[in-house]
């Protein structure tokens, strides 16, 4: 699968946050996008996910432009910016509600996904009682659970303890072998060097590959 981005422009009022950005993301790779605060990492992922509509340019999933029609991209998992769940439901109930939209997975699928992020033991706690790290884990479990072909993860390891981070990284490497496409953003490059195949830098609204990957 190829996710092709062509001359993408996204503006807010008159401020161009993404300026004619082009890049081809190929499945079977983990991409890391590094950029300082406000460089447009989250906005880029939101445009790819169809949550923001671009002002011009294309986002093509194997040639299909979902954003142009009235569709949201299919088979995509996202964990973008702060987790968003319903306070009065437990972690598990939150995932169950979301899973029932597409009806692709049942209880086992949800529990598997909670296991990957080390959250099974807290699955029956109310979301409002979750700690910051637990919320972030739930957000990742939500992105993983339907085994999507494309994963967009925005600073995924924020607030998560080391052991769990290592476990999630191992899982992402496994997904890569299954030919999934994974795009991760961070503002700390060192977090990603051991995980990513290709490191990119976003600056002034455009993407560049790092010349020498360590």
């Amino acid at each position: 699968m190829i996710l092709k981005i062509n001359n993408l422009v996204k503006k807010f009022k008159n401020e161009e946050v993404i300026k004619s950005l082009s890049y081809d993301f190929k499945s079977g790779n983990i991409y890391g996008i590094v950029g300082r605060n406000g460089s447009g990492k989250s906005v880029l992922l939101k445009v790819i996910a169809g949550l923001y509509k671009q002002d011009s340019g294309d986002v093509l999933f194997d040639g299909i432009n979902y954003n142009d029609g009235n569709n949201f991209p299919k088979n995509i998992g996202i964990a973008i910016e702060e987790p968003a769940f319903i306070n009065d439901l437990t972690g598990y109930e939150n995932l169950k509600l979301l899973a029932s939209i597409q009806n692709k997975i049942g209880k086992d699928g949800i529990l598997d996904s909670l296991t990957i992020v080390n959250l099974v033991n807290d699955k029956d706690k109310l979301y409002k009682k979750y700690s910051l790290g637990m919320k972030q884990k739930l957000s990742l479990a939500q992105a993983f659970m339907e085994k999507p072909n494309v994963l967009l993860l925005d600073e995924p390891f924020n607030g998560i303890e080391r052991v769990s981070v290592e476990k999630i990284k191992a899982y992402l490497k496994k997904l890569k072998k299954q030919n999934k496409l994974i795009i991760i953003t961070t503002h700390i490059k060192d977090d990603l060097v051991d995980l990513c195949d290709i490191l990119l830098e976003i600056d002034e609204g455009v993407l560049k590959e790092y010349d020498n990957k360590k």
Partner: protein
Amino acid sequence: MIIKNSIKAFFKTNYSKYIIILLFFNALISLGTFKETDDLFTSLTLSYSNSFFISYFMFIIFINNIYLYNTFFKNKNYIIRTNNKESYSEYFTIINIIISFIYSLILLLFTIIFIIIRIKGNISFSNLMHYNFYNWGYFIYFFIKNFILIFMLVNISKYLLLLFNGYISIIYILSLIITLIFSNIVIEINSVSSINLLPTSYLSLHNYGTFLVEISYIIGEFAILYVICLILNKIFIKFRKNYI
């Protein structure tokens, strides 16, 4: 599945329980609208045509709309799983209708309880009301008509929220309430020239001469509001840029 699960999830929230308390106070308003000597269905019709009673309920449905939007429909995890904008908008409307209808039944239950206590059990089915209708029959019609009208009026505010922002939709709902309170005078509607252009006037009790005339006016009003909602839905699908 998602509709059932969303509604179940909704009723697990604390918020949904606070709304039930607000509905209890809504039902209390009915006590000021009828006399102790009225029978049950006459009292119900009088309550459901009282502008304060209606505006209070309309406001609750409006708040509910905003809450649903903030917890479910502005939620990126939810949005990303709906296939397209049409089904996103459709889920929103259907879930909202069902929840609003459940609330309207709860309000009906509270109101009936208050009325029965006040009129000391004088439930008469056989009294004639408008157009020689039995009072129970007229009330059932009135209840359904008002629910549909209130829902459609509030549904327009949903689109204002989706297309613009919360302030515009609050201004819209407040202006509806103001026109409702000032237009609630019983009028005789006997010619086309006496048609009231304010959509909220169709919530109140008027004398249209015959039931056939009344129902024609009401269906006409439904059709107008329905077309407005359809147009707004198209505009939303075409022009909404950012979902979160």
